[in-house]
């Protein structure tokens, strides 16, 4: 049933491992809404048709005498309780709990630092460890948008990109999300992921892409929270890759880093 109604709900394609469950909740709720609306609507139309002044010149003081409506109300409450306890609460717990360790096997940790109006993406690199960052070190002109401390040994293989998020398929991605300036909201429609990026805090976020979808893995990051005059164009690109493609890309980045390192010797 929930599958049936989902066809009519215009949701974007779902390419994530967890999105299916969220969508099915969306489907069930909309089904409930539809039934309530159609049921009540039918009663309503019947009433306004039947009881207009012409057809029914004198009103009935008592009106409806049964208590069917109370049972109906109780039913609505019970269904809501089921959706809540059976779906929504466990699904949410699944989304926010069991955040994997950054260093765990098969986890790709990525830091994402939002700013007006771009997504800065910070990969830990092959060592799986993030270098130290500090706000004073942010230097836009020198290609250091996230303020990496280049003296930190962990930082040597760290890769940063702007507005380009590449992820391997079928690996759990662990995003650590924060913001430099104001509140943004990290939104990947096809991943069923949305989380506010709040300056001063860092929030974990996990998802796994299971398919490249109809658009060969090329999708968008949207900003969902008003963040200033450029909010509407704070768009990033999101690229789902196979593991090989991802490794190849990461390798390329490491080469570039080495080349740059030899140039200016940091």
């Amino acid at each position, binding site marked *: 049933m929930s599958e049936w109604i989902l066809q009519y709900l215009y949701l974007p394609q779902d390419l994530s491992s967890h999105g299916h469950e969220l969508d099915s909740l969306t489907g069930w709720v909309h089904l409930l809404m539809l039934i309530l609306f159609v049921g009540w609507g039918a009663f309503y139309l019947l009433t306004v048709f039947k009881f207009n002044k012409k057809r029914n010149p004198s009103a009935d003081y008592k009106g409806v005498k049964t208590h069917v409506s109370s049972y109906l109300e109780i039913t609505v409450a019970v269904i809501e309780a089921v959706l809540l306890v059976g779906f929504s609460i466990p699904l949410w717990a699944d989304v*926010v709990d069991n*955040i994997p360790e950054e260093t765990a096997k098969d986890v790709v940790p990525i830091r994402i630092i939002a700013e007006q109006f771009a997504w800065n993406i910070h990969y830990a690199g092959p060592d799986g460890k993030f270098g130290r960052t500090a706000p004073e070190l942010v230097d836009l002109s020198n290609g250091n948008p996230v303020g990496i401390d280049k003296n930190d040994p962990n930082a040597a293989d760290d890769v940063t990109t702007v507005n380009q998020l590449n992820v391997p398929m079928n690996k759990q991605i662990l995003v*650590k999300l924060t913001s430099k300036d104001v509140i943004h909201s990290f939104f990947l429609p096809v991943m069923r992921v949305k989380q506010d990026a709040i300056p001063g*805090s*860092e*929030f*974990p976020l996990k998802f796994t892409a299971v398919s490249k979808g109809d658009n060969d893995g090329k999708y968008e990051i949207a900003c969902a929270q008003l963040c200033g005059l450029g909010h509407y164009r704070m768009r990033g690109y999101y690229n789902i890759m196979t593991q090989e493609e991802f490794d190849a890309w990461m390798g390329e980045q490491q080469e570039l880093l080495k080349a740059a390192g030899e140039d200016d010797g940091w």
Partner: protein
Amino acid sequence: MSHSAEEVQKHVKVYITVFAALMVLTGVTVGASYLHLGSTAMNITLALIIAGIKGTLVAGYFMHLFTEKAIINWTLALTVVFFIVLLLVPILTELDTISLI
């Protein structure tokens, strides 16, 4: 409240006692803050308990809440409930986040 002169006369005695108690308690608050009760939380609790007692005295006697009509006490009870919600939930939220720092 009906305030016949004799009754008020009686109240005045109460007011003066309460006043004395408030003065003493103010001293106690300051004194207590120099005690080291092990943790800041303990100190805060103690200070708030004393302030609570003082507040109750002011509200109960000076503001006549102890003898006030039901309607006013109910209004305040309602307010207190919302006040507690207001105080508690930001704290709980702070404690239950998924943040990493």
